[in-house]
């Protein structure tokens, strides 16, 4: 076990845990954002650089600080390590820089993007971005293409996090897609004339942190916050069959895998569950999907209000009015 201090809070984690996961164990605002790391995709992480943190003390044995900021998603903790995440201006500056770089070639077409409301970059831009762009050159654009009959690739929006290529590599047999070319000419692509049509390819849509890979059976059907998300399952011979149904009335508009609070899929689902079962009668509904209250999706959420929680919140506000300590900043996601 190793004791680590992140933004002044100590946590004990098993050896080999990454700084990011140690921070996630503490939770809250100090958890570094992550655009490319994905817990259950081996070798993911390290690429987007938004999770950079400062290691102010390497370990008890070697207390020297690390010379550069490190990617928290790929750096293991050491006993006695002291990390600065949100508390370091240098870290915030670096994250801001990364957001600026990511937005250079990512169009802000949130008003028409299917991923609006579920997009990590949107959240990140809100928290770390600048209001105006300093970039006045031409931007990279691509034609939209179908990669398989169920998935549309909107490469212009891709931030090259490589998650979908890890899914292809680790989850599907007969991999036919990856990254072509170098630098800012890189693109996600299938081999010439190949298309992605194996049983688990749909999971690429769920891992995409932006709206570059979209579900052709759902595109433009609705904004997510107008849908009613329900946890549901079916008896599936290929996967766990545990899904979220995104419904409107009795219509199932979209089926996706269930995600944890960091937006990561907990169990991958097969394409049959995702694309071919769009009738309510195909599913056993387990209940409403819990959506974090600070997500835009909760705008129309149908969970019953927790009156006890509401009462506590009102009391907290009253305390504040009376001059108690400042309440924590509201999350930017609230206003998304």
């Amino acid at each position: 076990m190793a004791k680590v201090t992140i933004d002044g809070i100590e946590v004990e984690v098993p050896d080999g845990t990454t700084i990011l996961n140690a921070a996630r164990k503490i939770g809250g605002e100090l958890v570094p954002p992550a655009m490319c790391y994905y817990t259950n995709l081996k070798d993911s992480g390290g690429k987007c650089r938004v999770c950079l943190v400062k290691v102010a003390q390497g370990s008890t044995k070697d207390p020297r600080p690390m010379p550069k900021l490190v990617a928290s998603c790929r750096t293991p903790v050491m006993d006695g390590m002291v990390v600065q995440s949100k508390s370091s201006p240098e870290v915030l500056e670096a994250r801001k820089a990364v957001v600026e770089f990511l937005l250079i070639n990512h169009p802000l077409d949130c008003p028409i993007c299917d991923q609006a409301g579920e997009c990590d970059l949107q959240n990140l831009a809100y928290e770390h971005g600048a209001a105006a762009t300093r970039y006045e050159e031409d931007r990279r654009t691509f034609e939209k293409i179908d990669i398989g009959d169920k998935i549309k690739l909107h490469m212009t929006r891709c931030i090259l996090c490589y998650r979908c290529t890890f899914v292809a590599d680790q989850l599907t047999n007969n991999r036919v897609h990856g990254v072509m070319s170098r630098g800012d000419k890189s693109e996600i692509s299938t081999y010439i004339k190949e298309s992605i049509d194996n049983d688990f390819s749909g999971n690429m849509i769920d891992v995409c942190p932006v709206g570059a890979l979209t579900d052709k059976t759902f595109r433009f059907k609705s904004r997510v916050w107008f849908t009613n998300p329900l946890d549901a399952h079916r008896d599936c011979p290929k996967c766990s069959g545990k899904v979220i149904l995104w419904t409107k009335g009795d219509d199932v508009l979209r089926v996706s895998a269930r995600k944890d609070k960091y937006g990561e899929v907990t169990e991958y689902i097969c394409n049959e569950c995702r694309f071919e079962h769009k009738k309510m009668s195909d599913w056993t509904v387990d209940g409403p999907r819990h959506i974090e209250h600070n997500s835009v999706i909760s705008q129309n959420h149908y969970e019953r209000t927790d009156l006890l929680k509401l009462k506590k919140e009102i009391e907290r506000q009253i305390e504040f009015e009376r001059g108690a300590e400042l309440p924590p900043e509201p999350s930017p996601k609230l206003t998304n």
Partner: protein
Amino acid sequence: MGKKFLLEHVNVPGIETLPVYQSKGGYASVEKALKTMTPDQLIEEVKFSDLRGRGGAGFPTGLKWSFMDRKSDKPRYLVVNADESEPGTFKDRYLMEKLPHLLIEGMIVSCFALGAKSGYIYIRGEYMYIVRILEKAIDEAYQAGLLGKNILGTDFSLDLYVHPGAGAYICGEETALLESLEGKRGNPRLKPPFPAIAGLYACPTVVNNVESIAAVPTIINITADKYNDVGIGKSSGTKLISASGHINKPGIYEIELGLPVEEFIYSDEYCGGIWKGRKLKAVVAGGSSVPILPANLILKTAKGEPRLMTYESLADGGFVSGTMLGSGGFIVMDETACIVRNLWTFARFYHHESCGQCSPCREGTGWMEKVLHRIEHGHGHMEDIDLLVSVAKKIEGNTICPLGDAAAWPVASAIRHFREEFEYHVKYPEKVKDPKHFEKEPFVSEGMLVNG
């Protein structure tokens, strides 16, 4: 004449063949190492020699070897980095073309020291003619019992392979090189783990530059003490410098580390002074990725002492007034050179060569290139100059591999030392639209030019 360790016999006719090479004492270090020394002794000897990696970063070779995980029961590998893609650097190709057996000799001794039974030469694909030269020399060595099973009747066996790359600068970065050697896309790996623990095929691996390995036979033959006598302080031995640009005698020179920069540029033994009797404006001392220095700073250190061709002296003053010896690609610019244009050329290169894995380098290199393109072509704004500094700063230190830094350092240093020239481009767009702008009317700023 300075001492020559690497190129001593380079002009002997037929030196690329085994018999001639052996007639000049070739492969003596293999005899000595395999028959009279232990691997530990060899590693200690290389450590004591203070040999620093000649590929760019200057990391002590012996120390790197000592990191090799020798407890592992996996095979160990030596990989020679012959990718040589740094603009301005063209020394390894000369060494391999003229003295293929020197590299092979160095590899045999190094592999013995490291406990490696296989060694690879990862060579840039454009050097196809050298691949053939090396393969021929390797065949000769096999036939003479210097490679293969039980070398010179000892227990030690070794196989060497030559592997041409497909031509990407990033494949010179040691972990991208290993990916490429494994047959994958040449993307740098995240460190740790370092190659010494998990390198080629996840086995302990040392990656060294051609010139570093070619220096090993001399160290073993004459002993580390004697090798250390040449050079100054921690910059020991000799170094190949590929000199190019506005000099009378561009070429590859073996210098003793510690030679004054001024002597290197102006003496007839080396560059022979600036061509056409012009004045020196700037030097990029160690390949395109190191900070550029104006004439006054390349000749004198921050303390005003003569600047020497050593790792320490060139770096004196940090990046504010110093630079790096790097891979030894010494690019000289005279008074007619346009710093903005040169910087744009470098930026174009890094933009083209970024592997694209990490966002700061993928997006930042393209951004810098486009802004520099505008400034050089008379479409820049004053704010662009600070914008470039800011973008460079946001890339530096935030990327997976040092290519990001390599793209950022030249930008930051060029603007630090030649800001007026960037401002001139913005103020006089009509003048700089003519591609030969400074050839007709050299741009002079105070303290920049030095007479030969």
